[in-house]
């Protein structure tokens, strides 16, 4: 036996099963259902579960996710803007259950790549042939002095949607007219690169209607940001950007924008030289791969997970695939659509691998919309292909790019309609 590889063994076993030699122990083991265990039921994990079952209903798929509902980060800024209710970004797992996915509401605490087992906090143990880890991000709590998980209970990051979104929304509602909102985005890489600037837009949209004397200061740890020109054009159109009376002020890193310390008692943040008082403070801390990626030893020294981008199999542990925000999928941004696209690539690759086939050629995509103001949507898109020699995901030359600078009002209005259609479709593509 020892000289037969596992793959050959599976082939052999299924061959004998076909020949009808039922009863031998070898056969029952080979004929056993192929098992995939998915850790994390967000954009990546949910999509992977669905597409594994769609592509091969014979696979036993178990999804381990502590929460009974998932709140999408995408469109959560519209909740802050007041145009969307929280319930509309809340998704359950009934759709996946109907597709035969075994959904386990528990927290994965360990993955043993040798015995191919996932262990949970609740003491359960799940055997797998392949595992998919889609843990999203965790925060580097030590990056900003004075900020912590406890402080985030009253000074929200709102970078994971749900209760944090509600908290920030309520604080905006409670703020006096004439108050100052501080938004403090991190340096790259982080989840949803245009997100902090869409957030500023949506908060400005809310303030303009209800508290027009108020201001937003973005204290940035970067000197540039995603869709910058398009955001600034929108801010100029709606929020007086560039004038003395602008509702939004952006302070780049080079102007001491990077926040080093927070004093929660006085509601003050500190740069190298300057300090800023906020009536509402939103700190988006620097990020790293979600906790289980660390527990399972899937991260590099920077806290992200290196993978073979053709299959998303970890380059550290065979048989474990990492997708979504936690994975190093350069040049794809960390976005919901990226996670959705990567999940489909990983699902297909796993099915090929389990059937002893060479994984096929992947194709990846990302489209990302931001809502800047009423009837004003902007987007960035790219189609990606595999550069196998360099293990990189590269944009197809000539494809993709931003909303044109000179886009008409009618164009921008349509992009908003397409943004909302995208949301309806992609959430159904994940959870439906």
């Amino acid at each position, binding site marked *: 036996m020892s000289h037969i590889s596992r793959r050959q063994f599976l082939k052999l076993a299924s061959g004998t099963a076909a020949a009808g030699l039922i009863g031998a122990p070898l056969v029952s083991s080979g004929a056993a259902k192929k098992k995939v265990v998915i850790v994390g039921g967000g954009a990546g994990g949910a999509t992977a579960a669905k597409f594994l079952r769609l592509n091969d209903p014979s696979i036993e798929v178990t999804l381990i996710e502590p929460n009974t509902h998932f709140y999408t980060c995408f469109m959560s800024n519209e909740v802050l803007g007041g145009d969307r209710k929280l319930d509309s970004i809340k998704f359950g797992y009934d759709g996946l259950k109907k597709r035969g996915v075994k959904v386990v509401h528990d927290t994965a605490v360990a993955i043993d790549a040798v015995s191919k087992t996932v262990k949970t906090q609740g003491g359960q143990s799940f055997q797998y042939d392949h595992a998919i880890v889609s843990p999203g991000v965790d925060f580097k709590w030590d990056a900003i002095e004075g900020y912590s998980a406890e402080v985030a209970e009253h000074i929200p990051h709102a970078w994971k949607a749900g209760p944090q979104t509600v908290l920030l929304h309520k604080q905006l509602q409670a703020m006096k007219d004439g108050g100052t909102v501080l938004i403090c985005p991190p340096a790259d890489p982080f989840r949803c690169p245009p997100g902090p600037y869409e957030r500023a837009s949506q908060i400005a949209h809310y303030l303009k209607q209800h508290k027009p004397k108020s201001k937003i200061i973005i204290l940035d740890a970067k000197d540039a940001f995603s869709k910058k020109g398009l955001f600034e054009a929108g801010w100029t159109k709606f929020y007086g950007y560039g004038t003395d009376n602008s509702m939004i002020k952006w302070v780049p890193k080079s102007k001491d924008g990077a926040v080093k310390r927070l004093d929660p008692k006085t509601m003050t943040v500190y740069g190298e030289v300057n300090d800023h008082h906020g009536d509402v403070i939103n700190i988006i801390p620097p990020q790293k791969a979600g906790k289980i990626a660390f527990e399972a030893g899937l991260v590099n020294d920077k806290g992200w997970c290196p993978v073979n981008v053709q299959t998303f199999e970890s380059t550290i542990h065979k048989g474990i695939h990492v997708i979504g925000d936690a994975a190093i999928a350069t040049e794809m941004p960390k976005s919901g659509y990226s996670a959705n696209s990567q999940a489909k690539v990983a699902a297909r690759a796993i099915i090929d691998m389990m059937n002893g086939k060479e994984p096929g050629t992947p194709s990846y995509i990302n489209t990302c919309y931001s809502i800047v103001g009423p009837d004003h949507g902007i987007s960035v898109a790219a189609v990606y292909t595999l550069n196998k*020699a360099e293990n990189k995901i590269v944009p197809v030359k000539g*494809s*993709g*790019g931003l909303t044109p600078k000179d886009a008409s009002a009618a164009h921008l209005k349509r992009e908003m*309609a397409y943004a909302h259609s995208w949301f309806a*479709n992609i959430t159904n593509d994940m959870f439906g």
Partner: protein
Amino acid sequence: MSPTRSRALFSGILVAGGLSLGGIAAAAEQPATPVAPALPPASGAMLANACTGCHGTDGVSRGPASPTIAGITKDYFIDTMKAFKDGKRAATIMDRIAKGYSDAEINAMATYFAGKKYVGHAQKTDAAKVAKGKTLHKQNCEKCHEEGGRLSDEGGILAGQWMPYLHFQMEDFTSGKTKMPEKMEKKVKALKPGDLDALINFYGSQK
């Protein structure tokens, strides 16, 4: 000449041109180091599944601005993607996306979506407009958009298609941003105000 025939001719020219160009390139470039073998083409399903984040699983859209593309003909899919690529069809984002795919890849996606089942969408329509639209459809559109807009070799499926999407397309046709086929242009130009809305209500009412 039908779009199908012109495309066949056009791709024939492309192949011939590509061959001679390829010959020149091979003669000019003598790579010093062996190049990694090209990857086999991605499957139609792999390519098509990238689309479904915006166009819905299997191409059945759940969002009213994005069209359902399940069940559309191969020809229409290919013509549309090429028109997006060439800037001949108005777009917000599809022009940027279509440029990411080769003709062979577009062909593979077209086959995939043509094999999926079209699902029409129950939408709120105005009964009076539907009735008016039904008459207008019979008089003007049925010849090409057959069976109440359920069938069409050269066009999309209109029956049960999302109405906001249909409005966008008609805006682009009537403004001239997307050129209409000649026959359609004559018919559309002869319509009176409110007629297009009635037609769209009719299509939206169809299952």
